[in-house]
């Protein structure tokens, strides 16, 4: 931990300053693919299983299970999709990976293609990252020139793989894998009914793996150094390291690679935010954690996150923070299912009532109850997690929020 560099805001020029146990360690372009192609597909899947790698997008589904299902599927076409629709507020790690470590991401996708038997990879790139497009395209072209993409990849007879990049158009919900696939197919970006999962019926009806940028970037390292090595970092149930996008009231915001299991307190010390009052873990749809819980650790089994860490100090008004999150969800709900479409509006209205002091505690409790319905009855992850900030902020910061307002309350 002591060796961790403190990074300032990331730019392409700062790559040499980064260091970390896995992703920010040394990697030779193409070496992962080379190793993978010398292995048997099952060997790769076994290494992946031993690594206990879970999806880095936030949901934490075991990557090996996903790949095994698609690898076992019997279909003439399979797809590898890289979810680069990095839309969760406060997350910017994929931007760093794509702009500074494209070799890891694309090599990871190629290894995935080899492992599951796919010939096409698609990067669904966030619309706001259009500026990266020409750079990434030129990198892919370089890969084709050097034989790492295209027909008979690196001389491996019969393994053809290529990657194309498709742009999103700015909808948050398209980060949800089935909405992403709908969008790729040319439809309105709306989540599908699950089941079926993309591993069975994905892009154009074919078995598809959809993984986060960071997940793919980890693959070459796991292939090169093995699953057991990967488990050296992190906790038992959250193996390896994680990229954290740290923003907000701290001295050194930026992207950090830390092992899973790091406590919030440790992270705050590293980034220089000792006076933090609250930390939003997991972006807008995550939870807001107060000082008394700073001993919690960042891991799938405790405070899970796709990477977003937002730090707030005493100068911030928690109600305003909550309000901006709820405004975000009202804006970004796809509008398909009832609980999410209307529920978020009702929660936002509740926040505004508290803001004006025109509320009853009874109604706020009713709204929390509604939030709990949204968590279990919404069609996709967006609606299932959007009440999280409402419920957790009002719970963890009730003294602050209701202290001055309680007098104005109608009850």
């Amino acid at each position, binding site marked *: 931990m002591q060796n961790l560099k403190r990074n300032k805001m990331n730019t392409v020029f700062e790559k040499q300053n980064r260091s970390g146990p896995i992703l920010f360690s040394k990697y030779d372009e193409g070496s992962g693919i080379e190793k993978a192609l010398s292995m048997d597909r099952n060997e790769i899947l076994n290494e992946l299983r031993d690594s206990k790698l879970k999806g880095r997008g936030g949901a934490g589904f075991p990557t090996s299970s996903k790949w095994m299902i698609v690898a076992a599927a019997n279909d003439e076409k399979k797809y590898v999709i890289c979810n680069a629709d990095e839309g969760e507020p406060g997350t910017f790690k994929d931007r760093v990976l794509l702009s500074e470590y494209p070799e890891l991401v694309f090599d990871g996708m190629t290894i995935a293609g080899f492992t599951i038997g796919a010939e096409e990879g698609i990067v669904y790139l966030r619309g706001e990252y259009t500026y990266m497009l020409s750079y990434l395209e030129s990198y892919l072209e370089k890969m084709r020139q050097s034989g790492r993409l295209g027909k008979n990849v690196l001389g491996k007879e019969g393994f053809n793989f290529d990657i194309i990049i498709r742009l999103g158009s700015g*909808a948050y919900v398209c980060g949800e894998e*089935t*909405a992403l*696939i*709908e969008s790729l*197919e040319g*439809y*309105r970006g*709306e*989540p*599908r*009914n699950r*089941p*079926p999962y993309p591993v069975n*019926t994905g892009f154009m*009806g074919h078995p598809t793996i959809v993984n986060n940028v960071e997940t793919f970037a980890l693959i070459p390292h796991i292939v090169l150094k093995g699953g057991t090595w990967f488990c050296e970092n992190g906790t038992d149930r959250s193996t390896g390291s994680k990229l954290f996008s740290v923003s907000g009231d701290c001295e050194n915001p930026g992207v950090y690679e830390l092992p899973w299991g790091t406590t919030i307190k440790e992270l705050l010390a590293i980034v220089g935010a000792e006076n933090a009052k609250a930390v939003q873990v997991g972006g807008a749809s995550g939870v807001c954690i107060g000082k008394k819980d700073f001993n919690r650790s960042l891991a799938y089994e405790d405070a899970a996150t796709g990477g977003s860490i937002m730090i707030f100090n005493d100068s911030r008004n928690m109600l305003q923070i909550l309000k901006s999150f709820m405004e975000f969800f*009202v*804006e*970004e*709900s*796809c*509008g*398909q*299912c*009832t*609980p999410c*479409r*209307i*529920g*978020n*509006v*009702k929660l936002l*209205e509740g926040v505004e009532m508290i803001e004006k002091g025109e509320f009853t505690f009874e109604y706020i409790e*009713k709204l929390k*109850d*509604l939030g709990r*319905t949204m*968590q*279990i*009855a*919404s*069609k996709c992850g967006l609606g*299932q997690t959007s009440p999280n900030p409402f419920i957790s902020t009002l719970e963890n910061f009730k003294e602050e929020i209701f202290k001055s307002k309680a007098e104005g309350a109608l009850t």
Partner: protein
Amino acid sequence: MNTQTELRSPMSQRPHIISKAKDRTGIGANVGIEVNGEKLSVPMGKTILEICRENNVHIPTLCYHEDLCIAGNCRMCVVEVEGMKTLQAACAFPVTGPVKIRTFSNKVRKARKHILDLLLSEHYGECYSCVRNNNCELQSLAKEYGVDGYEFGHVCESRFEIDKTSHAVVRDMDKCILCRRCVRTCIDLQEVGVLEAIYRGYDTMIGTFMDKPLADVICINCGQCINRCPTGALHANDPSDDIWKAIEDPSKHVVIQTAPSPRAAIGEEFGLPPGTSMTGQLNTAIRRMGFDRVFDTNFSADLTIMEEGTELLNRLKSAIVDKDKSVMLPQFTSCSPGWVKFIEHFYPEHLNYLSSAKSPQQMFGAVIKTFYAKEQNIDPKDIVTVAVMPCAAKKFECNRPEMNSSGYKDVDYGLTTRELAKMIRETGLVLPELPKSNFDEPFGEASGAGLIFGATGGVMEAALRTVYELVTGRQVPFKNLNIEACRGMEGIKQASVKLENCVEQFSFLEGVELKFMVAHGTANAKTVMEMLLKGELSDFHFIEIMGCPGGCIGGGGQPIPTSELIRKLRAKAIYDEEASLPVRKSHENPRIKYIYEKFLTDGPCGKLSHKLLHTHYQKRGKFIS
């Protein structure tokens, strides 16, 4: 019922289909599950909703409709599946393992109540001022879940302008709950795709291309969306006030024609089971309401058969004898105004295949304002013609500018079955209890052939009975005149009949295998048109197409709800009634013989017929300005 393999709806609006084992006794074909503690053995791949419905476990639904693909977006049907963190939509969840399901746990009931509360908070208007009062799925669910107040508020101001531009369909988006049944109906069932969800999140609404008024887009007016709307957001453009005015105006002679399908369905509006025929009672009701004459559209259906059948024989003669390459075969029927507008929009270069014969509604209008006016000595300008139709598109059809060959607007008002039922209710008449009475002369008699126009395949069957007999001098070679190949709810049906020992006039048809095809619902029509364009139908002669699933009995003006079973029962009512009629062939209808003797003296497809009973079509295309 949709014969297409490719649906146009996105996957987000579709269920997970598990291929079902053919042999139900095989290992893995069935799976043991528990529903509310009761053990069941069910076929693998069935959805929870299907299983529950079959086992009389009620699950509330809003976006689900058995005619449509599954969206799973209203979330009303959520149930608890043991071991799953979230509730699952019963309509979209296929059972693939031994699951335990609870359909009314506290969690489930609370979630459903919350969803209803949320929908009601956005649902503007009051039930008593709604066209769907007492026949609204949202309203009945509110009752089911004991909604006694607006938990999360209620909109107090209208937010959308009602779109009344279309002659057929009125859209009131204030009442829309965004279940998207209309979207799926339009795109999948009908292959039109006028309606789509636009904007995002809370701003989501059902819109048209560039949110233009319905009259300006390529809507075919079929009204199938109305039949599937769970609330009052979609309804037909109701002319009943104007009709009441005309009835009370002593200077007006108000004549009504009733199509075959309304009489087989209107009973549903009065609480009778689907498939209860109300022909005689309806005549009495209409007379008591104050209409001056009640006529049977079946008469003009017979007239249509004479014209359309003759046109077919003429086309066959031109093609076979004169080798005229400009004659288009197969000939498509043109009775369904939804289908006509569909082909005008989607296949504008192929209008020549359509028969030029007007629909029975329009033929009748033209005859009433000419022949009837003259015989009765009434000035046609004082005649108001009303047509009771199962159809929303008929409202558009009677307003087509070319439909005035009598010198006046041939048909003044198109009235749907639902609207007529409303008018009857306004009078206080109880339809099922009325005595029966007959239609008025001089069009008081119609053949069974005209009656079966109401069901898909009916026009074909009626036409074959007449054409075959004209050509060979013998009855069609089918038992009891029933051409079973034309009947039933299959999306596309085809068959053939061989013409042998023809009469001298039609000797050129000797040995010809008359091939015909029947399709209903414009999605199937599209399939047929694509086959035509590929040249797969070059040996076909006659194709019947109805715009609505099931034909007219499933029309957009029929009572709500609709389902395949309801449509089958209505069709059965029509076929049962037809079997008992004395005259079952159009050309044997004495009134038809009379009109060709007295009025249309140059015969079917003669000069006067062409003026009054035939029309032309517009190349509309898909361009929306």
